[in-house]
């Protein structure tokens, strides 16, 4: 039986989760935070168990890495909710819990007889995939390339489901706080479509406030007007995202020190413009009407390109950050796990799978609590591994 750790701030809160890939990330976050999350799945296993990739590329309901990732720290009860006995078992489980977490067309009203129970539903159009959710919610329109003859793209991973799940967790935490005040639970209904739409940054509010129509841009935020490219290829062929341009005098000075730290100041012809930038407290938008100020600002990107042409992306990243200049090396997601900054934080964690006698690296919990440490619980449960809970 998996060893479930509940040391986090939600220790003592029991959540019954009806297995669904849309809300499974919410359950995972709650488990990371210490809640006792019991996932209820059909006797043949949750649909998520059929999703690859699979351990050693061999398919199987206990080998789905998707299931593993989304269900660490949870316990599993297998119920056939079409039968009266298992329906009654679910009611008993919910009666023992603080929270019922669901997604889609689940009627939770029959559980609302317990006034202290909090029910959370992630509501969404049916049928649904993460791709259609992100498309219909707005983000896909905003993701892609400067060349608008290239169709919109969608970022990898179940980002729409994650966004909806995060809002479900936010709603639930607030409802838990409210219950502390008056002892009463409530129903928390999260619209997945609205959740992803409010992540479109300027897209929706720009349109509502000013009628702006934003367009996707390569490697940077969508905008109503084209902005400067931010991705720069470095000497090792890898890319850096150089972020937004500096605007404050001290930042121009830092940029000069950064170039100097690479021994390149004498070679960089545009240093004279960065020196001019040091004379500004801050370059304001109105200042940009002055072509000399425009040149000062462009010299920032020129400087970044100059340094990039001579150093690796990682050295650019670290040296710029050390000088207080925002920059990000463009890692693949797996490379992040090896970054010394994350390793220093002990962020990747090894999870032992006692049933396989093997350990695997998982991303850790991004939050640290000084009083109630959160941690990734044990491996994801096998189907009905904790069936005794339903008895």
């Amino acid at each position, binding site marked *: 039986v998996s060893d479930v750790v509940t040391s986090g701030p939600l220790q003592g809160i029991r959540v019954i989760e009806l297995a669904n890939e849309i809300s499974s990330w919410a359950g995972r976050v709650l488990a990371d935070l210490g809640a006792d999350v019991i996932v209820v799945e059909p006797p043949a296993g949750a649909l998520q168990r059929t999703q690859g990739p699979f351990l050693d590329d061999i398919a199987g309901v206990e080998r789905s890495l998707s299931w593993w990732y989304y269900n660490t720290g949870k316990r599993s009860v297998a119920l056939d909710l079409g039968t009266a006995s298992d329906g009654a078992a679910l009611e008993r489980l919910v009666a023992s819990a603080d929270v019922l977490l669901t997604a889609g067309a689940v009627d939770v009203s029959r559980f609302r007889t317990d006034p202290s129970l909090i029910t959370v539903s992630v509501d969404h159009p049916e049928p649904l995939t993460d791709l259609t959710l992100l498309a219909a919610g707005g983000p896909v329109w905003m993701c892609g390339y400067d060349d608008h003859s290239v169709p919109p793209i969608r970022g990898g991973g179940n980002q729409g489901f994650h966004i909806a799940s995060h809002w479900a967790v936010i709603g639930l935490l607030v409802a838990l706080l409210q219950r502390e005040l008056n002892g009463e639970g409530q129903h928390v209904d999260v619209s997945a479509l609205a959740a992803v739409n409010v992540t479109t940054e300027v897209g929706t509010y720009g349109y509502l406030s000013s009628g702006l129509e934003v367009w996707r841009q390569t490697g*940077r*935020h969508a*905008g109503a*007007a*084209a*902005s*400067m490219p931010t991705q720069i290829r470095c000497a090792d062929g890898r890319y850096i995202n150089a972020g*937004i*341009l500096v605007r404050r005098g001290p930042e121009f000075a830092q940029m000069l020190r950064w170039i100097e730290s690479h021994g390149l100041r004498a070679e960089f*012809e*545009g240093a*004279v*413009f960065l*020196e*001019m930038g040091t004379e500004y407290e801050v370059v304001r*938008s109105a200042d*940009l009407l002055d*072509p*000399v100020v*425009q*040149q000062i*600002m*462009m010299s*920032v*990107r020129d400087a970044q390109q100059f340094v990039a042409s001579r150093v690796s992306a990682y050295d650019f990243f670290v040296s710029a950050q050390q000088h207080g200049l925002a920059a990000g090396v463009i890692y693949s997601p797996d490379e992040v796990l090896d970054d010394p900054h994350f390793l220093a934080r002990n962020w990747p964690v090894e999870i032992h799978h006692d049933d396989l006698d093997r350990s695997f690296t998982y991303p850790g919990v991004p939050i640290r609590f000084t009083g109630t440490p959160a941690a990734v619980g044990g491996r994801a449960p096998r189907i009905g591994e904790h069936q005794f809970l339903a008895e």
Partner: protein
Amino acid sequence: MELKAGQRLKSAVCATEMMVVKGKGDIDLRCGGHSVVAHGTDASGEPIADGFDTGTQMGKRYADDDLGLEVLVTKAGKGSLSIGDAPLLQKDAKPLPSSD
């Protein structure tokens, strides 16, 4: 005239003012057919030479890729820029810096 980045120059014969963005060395940069002068120098009062009177545009960049020279016009005038007698061509506009 010896040029270097950041140097501010003006036309000897019209209102054009400019700044060197790129390039250095002894370059025969002219405006209105006459050699440019240091910023702050009085105009010579001579007329703009024939054929060098199409004007400069404020905020535009003019460049000679072979020389690695690029100048930014900070004040427009009636003379036109050249290297010796060869016209200095206007560059395509770069997008303005954006906050994001």
